[in-house]
Structure formats: structure tokens, C-alpha cells
């Protein structure tokens, strides 16, 4: 993949084993009250989070690189995040 591509293209270089259940849960009410959406969208290097037209937080858990940055900066109560189940999620081939 060429250097100047966007994050979607960069993510296409990463192998994932996708679980059918999400390991991320956004508490939309708390997120709305605390302005979590903008923070989550900005920090995540995998662009897992988005702001939906209605202002709620969208979450594409399958692209998660499992770094934990969102958990570290999310306003209290806005996010439940743990690692995917064993054997699921990102599988680095180089790391």
C-alpha cells in the first residue's frame, strides 16, 4: 500500500479475526452529556468512532487495534471497553 493513502487503506494492511459480539459499548446518554464523541473520534488511530447524523457516537468495533487509548481519555461512564475474546481481534504479523 502506498504511503500517502488514508487510514482506511492503512487499516487494509492489518489482519483481523472479527468476533460477532462487540467488545466496545458506548453509553450514549453519558457520551452526549460529556461531549465524548469529539474526543473519541480524534484520538482513535483506527477511526473506530464516528459521529452519527443524530449526534450519537458510532462505533465500528471490528477495526479496533486494541490500544486502549479511547478508554484512557473517555469521560467517566461514557465507554465500556475491554479486549476482544481470546483469539479474536487484531492479529499483527509484524507488530
Amino acid at each position, binding site marked *: 500500500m502506498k*504511503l500517502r493513502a488514508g487510514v482506511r487503506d492503512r487499516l487494509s494492511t492489518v489482519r483481523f479475526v472479527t468476533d460477532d459480539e462487540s467488545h466496545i459499548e458506548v453509553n450514549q446518554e453519558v457520551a452526549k452529556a460529556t461531549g465524548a464523541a469529539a*474526543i473519541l473520534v480524534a484520538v482513535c488511530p483506527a477511526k473506530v468512532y464516528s459521529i452519527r447524523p443524530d449526534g450519537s457516537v458510532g462505533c465500528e468495533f471490528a477495526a479496533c487495534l486494541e*490500544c*486502549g*487509548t479511547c478508554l484512557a481519555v473517555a469521560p467517566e461512564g461514557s465507554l465500556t471497553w475491554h*479486549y476482544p475474546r481470546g483469539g479474536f481481534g487484531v492479529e499483527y504479523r509484524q*507488530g
Partner: protein
Amino acid sequence: MSGQDSYDFDVAVVGAGPAGSVAAHQLAGAGHDVVLIERGSEPGSKNLSGGVLYGRALEAVFPDYLDDAPVERRITRNVVTFLNRGSRVAIDYSDDRLADPTNAVTVLRAKLDPWLAGRAEEAGAMLMPGVRVDAPLLDGSSRVIGVKAGEDELRTRVVVAADGVNSFLARAAGFRPAPEPHQLAVGVKAVVDLPAATIEERFGVAPGLGAAHAIVGDCTLGIGGGGFLYTNRESLSLGVVLRLDDLVKRGLESTEVFEHFLAHPGVAPFLEGGEVSEYGCHLVAEGGQAMMGRLAVDGMVLVGDAAGLTINSGLTVRGMDLAVGSGSVAATVVHDALEAGDTSLAALGRYEQALRDSWVGQDMATYAKAPAFLEEPRMYDGYGTLLADVLHGVFDLDTRPRRRLWRTALDTVRHSPLRTRDLVSDVWKGVRSL
């Protein structure tokens, strides 16, 4: 609890990174029943680091690691660059002595970690991949008596928590508070493929040898942290490390900063013609000694990133060596505790003192003030420009009469937005911190 038979293993090591695999290797080698639990489908598949391993600690455990382990290049050239908009000032240090004995190597964790776990298996540890440990298993008196993974419980005499920077084991039951955003940084990385000959030519290194570039300033758009650019055999490991408090405060996107770094005129020429073969990210503990909490509780010890063992001295960025060192020290203490038949806090608590007495603990203490020093925003903006301005005064021979270097420097400081008082104070703090 009841007798010996109620335990599935003597020790559960959670996490097959450098800390966990070394601890498992040492304990299994000493004859204990060890299970090494890894949430990835194989060791290394969840792990990512910038990529420079200061390898002398690993060599003490595995004397043949340089020949046997999948390492990339031996680092003999270290470059620290202040990269400004339109100027750059670098310290470029090459030294043959760094190759003999080899001091540092670049590694790719998805390749190194399976090797390390393999060594632990050879010593007799049982590797259990694809299992996510959710929490420590506690008895009625909050003593750790094993681990919980989904519906399953595994009972062990001791748990070694080597589950990384997000350590859910350390946080469970309130052993340690969640770190503050200023104590964490996110590393955003790409591996970029290039032919070996191109790498050797661009980085000025011989075959098998390599360079490590640390870059501060405009490459992170002034956000606390920096960029890195390391040579592997046939690829580069590169990216940015961004302190979370600063990233959030500036409202910038981590991906935007990463793309700015890739395109920066001070970085882009190194990457020309390369292709991204893998993208990734990882959280980095940046808090130093201040973010280390308790390292031992009743029935459990913490090692590596889970214990907050990382050092950023401004010149060297370390984690894997401290992981190896702590895994080794923990194994010694756990071994003694198992031999004595006492794995309570009274016995395992000796790990905290043993670690403090070791080079790991001593280095953590030496650099205890470095994180606060490196939080000063002037490091990422003002000083790089100041250095360039001083040198511009020296090299820009515009037919006006020259003045001595110190006078040029003083004038530059006087005309810069930096206050002399801050400069003097920062130099003094730097001397005491780094």
C-alpha cells in the same frame, strides 16, 4: 485454602510478551508447573512496539539470542533530531563499540515474541494461547488464588501479571488506579517495506547494522511526544508517540498527526518508494516511577508494562529491556516463595525491594523526574527553533562582522520568545532529570 492438590498450576503467567515469557522460562526452568496464558491466537499477535530492544538484559537470560532470535538490525547509529518548520538540528552519534558487544537491536514483536514464548515452552512452561484472562480469582480474604477467563477458573499459587500497559489484572480489585492521560501516550506506527540496500544507503549503515532516529518538534505538530524512525532488515518501523493529555487538549486527530509526520520534508525522503506493509498502534506508559503502584499483592506480582516499567530519557526510549529485567527479578522472588511454601504478600512483597535494588529499579529512580521535565511544552516547539536560530547566526555569513559563538547565542536567546529565566530553569531541570 485446602491442600496442594487444589491447584492446577504453581504459577499462571498472564501475557506472553518479553516480561511474561522470561518469567515463565525462569520459573519453569527451576522446576515449577507454569502455564503461560496469552490472549492472542499466538504470542506476539497482539503486541507492537517502536522496535528498539536494548538487548543486554535479554542476553543475560538467553546468551545466544543474537544468533537465534529473529532480530532485525544491530543499532550502531543513534540520531536525535529537532525538526522545525524549515530547519533541523540533530545529534548524530555512530559508534563501532555499539556493535561489539551489541547493545541494541530492532525487533518486530510478532516475530520476536513467538521465539521468546517458545523458549519458555522448551523450559517446560505450558503455553495456552487464545485465552483472554478477565480478572484475578480471589478468595474470601481478597487473596489472589488464580485467574478467571470467561466461565473458566484456573487455580494457582502465584499469578504473574504480564498483561501489558492496560493491565486489567492490575486494575481489578483496585490494586492500581487507572493511569492519568498525561502518564500515557499513544504510539501510531507503520512498517514500511524497502530493499535492504536502499535502507543501508539512506541511513548510512553497513549490512546487518542499523540506525535509530528520534525526532521531536514540528513532526508531531508540537504535541508532547515525538517521532521515531528505525531500520529493520527490509523495512522501516516509523511513527509518532503522542501524549494523551496534549493530544486531547489540542483537539488534533492522531491519524492527522501521523500523516503529517509521514509527509514531513525531514522524514519523507527516507520513505520514498516504500510501501506500508502493516499499520498499528499501542499505548505507551510515560509516567515513569510516579505511575508505578504496588508491584505485589497477596498471591500476585506485576511485571513489565503492567507494572508501568518504561523510561523515556529524551535520548533513549525503553520498555522491553525493563520488561525482561523485571520478569527475571520476579521469577527469582516467586521461586523463593514457592520453595518456602509461602506465597502471601509477606513473601511476594520482597519483589518490590528486589526490583528497587536491581538495575531496573535503579534506572527508574534515576529517571524519575524525566516525565515531568519532558511535559514542558518548550521541548516540542521553542528549543528546536532556538538551536536553529543560534546556528543560523553562525553559518549565515552575510558580510556583517561575526561575533563569538556565546554572544551570538545570547543575542538569539534575547530575541527569541523564550524567557531567559525559563531557559536557565529548564537547563537546570534537564541536568537533574535526564
